[in-house]
């Protein structure tokens, strides 16, 4: 045995020591440059870049990572506001999203014009069961009218929450970049009702 026993371990400890020191050194370097490493956009950008060293964690929820444009979360319908101030869904109830949805969580009700008997290009009801949705993004990908989205578009599109399909899971709250969605929890009555129905069925 040529090597000293324990040398490998000491080397390894050297690596942890370097990591440990780096967490302080990096902070001091930023201080010396007169910049703030935490709670600033620049700091977050640095910590997730390839030259990150030292502490690379993010102080959630005070700090949030920027969300890339393609990021997928719960699908929602997009509406446009016309000149009279009416909200108009872009959806034409063509049903492609319901057909392509892998867990089949989209239900669309299409209605016909009672006079002509032709389908109205607007959904009568549109449900997304968020419990089942697997956030695959296929509905948004194959929508020919860009009417359903899982991503934000630099504030151009307005997210409309369909209260009928919201399950209060809270997913949208932490991912919303502009803190636009506030979740109202279940009322006490609702919770009691759920418990009761469980007891009755059990």
């Amino acid at each position: 045995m040529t090597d000293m026993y324990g040398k490998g371990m000491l080397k390894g400890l050297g690596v942890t020591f370097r990591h440990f020191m780096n967490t302080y050194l990096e902070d001091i370097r930023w201080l010396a440059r007169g910049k703030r490493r935490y709670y600033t956009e620049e700091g977050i950008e640095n910590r997730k870049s390839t030259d990150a060293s030292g502490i690379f964690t993010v102080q959630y929820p005070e700090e949030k990572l920027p969300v890339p444009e393609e990021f997928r979360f719960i699908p929602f319908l997009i509406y446009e506001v016309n000149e009279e101030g009416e909200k108009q869904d872009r959806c034409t109830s063509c049903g492609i999203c319901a057909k392509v949805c892998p867990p089949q969580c989209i239900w669309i009700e299409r209605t016909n014009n009672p006079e002509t008997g032709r389908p109205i290009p607007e959904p009568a009801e549109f449900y997304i069961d968020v419990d089942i949705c697997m956030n695959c993004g296929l509905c948004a990908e194959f929508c020919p009218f860009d009417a359903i989205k899982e991503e934000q578009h630099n504030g151009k599109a307005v997210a409309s929450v369909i209260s009928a399909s919201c399950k209060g899971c809270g997913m949208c709250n932490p991912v919303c970049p502009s803190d636009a969605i506030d979740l109202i929890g279940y009322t006490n009555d609702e919770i009691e009702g759920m418990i009761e129905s469980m007891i009755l069925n059990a």
Partner: protein
Amino acid sequence: MSEEVLVEEKTELEERFPEIARDQRNGYEGFIVPADKLIDFAVTLRDEFGYDFLSSVTGVDYMPEDKLEVVYHAYQTTGGPGFVYKVQVDRENPVVPSLSNEFPGAELQEREAWDLMGIRFENHPNHKRVLTWEGFEGHPLRKDWQEPFFEEEGKPFKSRWPGGEVIRIEDNNPFRKNVDYPQGFDPGKWQEAGQAVVYENVVRLDHPVSETAISTDQIVVNLGPQHPSTHGVFRMVVRLEGETVVDLEPVMGYLHRNHEKIGERNTFLMNIPFTDRLDYFNSMSNNFGYVLAVEKLMGTKPPERAEYIRVMMAELTRIVNHLAAIGFLLNDLGAFFTPLLYAFEEREMILDIFEAVSGSRMMCNYYRFAGVARDLPEGVFDQVKRFVHDRLPRKIDELDTFLTNNEIIRTRTIGIGVLTAEDAITHSAAGPVLRASGVPYDVRRADPYGIYDRFEFDVAVRYHGDIYDRYLLRLDEIRQSIRILEQVIRDMPEGPVQEGKPQYQVRVPAGEAYGRVEGPKGELGFYVVSNGKPNPWRYHVRAPSFINLTPLGVMCKNYKIADVVSILGSIDIVLGETDR
């Protein structure tokens, strides 16, 4: 291996076995072997033609023809295309001779075929269910078996549009009966008999007690299913002599959801996001395997740029997986979380890339038939470039210094959990487990798919077959992946990323296809049978995490119980894929 050799082999085999017939169905390949000649045929194929690696065994239910078929895919460990042979049996009384005694690698797969398809394997050493529980009624992959809350044979379900009568999932109340018990079955009384079945195999073996040593009682210990070292819900029934493992049997299926049945209900496109959920560390390479299989059936090819992006993502995901595997192995060895978090620092950067490209960190759903979902967004290519050129090599070297020569790691891993090359091949182990045992078999080189034949890289191989070599091999593979990535970055062309218009209803001609990729955990294969309808007739996953568990008993025998944890960690399993 050229095509002519294959043709020669086939004619020679036909002369040797006049009973076998070529599979004449349109879009099918291989031979149909009569059941009574199966063992003879398989052994001849192995011993005289060199097809020593029985990669995949699975069943297909051809209900309209009233037949069950067992499909075998055999390969040569020296490389080259595969050899497919099939056995057809009657649907009412499906009995096939078991290959498990000649090819122990078939053992778990035959058990799976029994469990899900109801094909009985004669002389199987351990013939019982593997993924579903002992009291399960029926064989779910049979076409006439229907799940609770069955709606329709295939998606899309007609009720969704234009009717839209919404049924909430909670209206199918989970507290109502959603499990079918066999008649007269009482779950409260099941315990005794069911447990006996689990222990049968480990208790059954007759172990000679040494005359000279102090006589000790052998005890049976359960490791798991709720054990932090099992990487999920996985159970090992271990028979111990003192602290030495005498026998070990893996028990799995706690996370079983019958991925394959779901896959048969889905359309071809819908399956892509479901493959993400198999091995959730490597959704990119799961997509790759499935997409390859369906592309084989469709006869399409992605454009150049998409091919490069695919390779880039597949290699990045390999790096992610190996970093996590090394980290968790160290966790299992007792180096609690420090190495893992160092590894996760790099993993995090790769996941950021995935997120920017595909929209999700782990469930990427990025590959499409004949292309990828979208082009690389602005800036991502530079991000990959900086990461691969500047940061990753340095960090891998750091991990190397940090761990490789550590005396504790060396004493705990060198010479532990040895799997010989011979055992590795016969047990159908694949990926790092096979290559660490000295078999340089890598699908990327042995049977290149995509554009892997263009890249220069070495097939990493180590020769001792112990935990330490499996660890070193993963480091080697990360370095080779970096080499491939450098070439991808150098050669990445411009152009479209999708052949033709993206379609949500793809036309897949009838036939069968087996697409396999070298996943980070081993050979990941997708066997897809289409009958021309929008839904696949059969969709089977050859899951490396599942099949790599076949040699677990061999690897653990005669080592201490404390080593079992690290041996399991060195195989690197993900239960989402094992249990499917």
